[in-house]
């Protein structure tokens, strides 16, 4: 039973990711794209958690911990890219 619910959750999460991907595609400025890619990354953490639960990965929480620790690097470098090195 729980497997079907997890797969439904994966589909819903995919919808959210798709919305963010459309915004990242049409976003008028690079900062809109950066915000959208931030959201894509959060949805991706959800993906990792759900797939890990579905397939019983041992190291699930280690992966989540590392993902949350390193995820903001993407946002920082997108912000840096937007200003061209100016702070």
């Amino acid at each position: 039973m729980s497997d079907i619910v997890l797969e439904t959750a994966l589909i819903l999460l995919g919808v959210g990711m798709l919305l963010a991907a459309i915004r990242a595609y049409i976003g008028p400025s690079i900062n809109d794209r950066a915000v959208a890619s931030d959201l894509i990354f959060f949805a991706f953490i959800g993906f990792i958690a759900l797939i890990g639960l579905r397939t019983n990965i041992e190291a699930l929480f280690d992966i989540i911990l590392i993902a949350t620790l390193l995820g903001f690097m993407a946002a920082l470098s997108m912000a840096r890219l937007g200003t061209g090195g100016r702070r």
Partner: protein
Amino acid sequence: MELDNIMQIAGLVAIFIGIATIVVAGIGLFNLPDLYLRASAVGTSAGLGVASIVVGALLMDFSWLNLLKALLAIVAQMLTSAVGSMAIARSGYLNGALPAAVTHTDDLMKTRRDNFS
């Protein structure tokens, strides 16, 4: 057995709360007019969304070591996502992304140089 079932269901509920937050933030990316409001909308999923998905996964797969890792992950997520969204909003302002017309006061505008954008 009884407690196990309750924890599974509570975990699923927490996961669905997190997913709903992420989908709502995705809708907000289209519904809101400017960069700063969109960053606020993404802020909901950065804090509550990821945190409740992690809590849900913890409830479905509980052990004391996992509890420690999940707490660390939630704290790290909250601190780093705050830094990330601050950097994006700040670079947006430096880049000349003006706030939408509904913004009624803009104190930061006084500190801009005219030849800036």
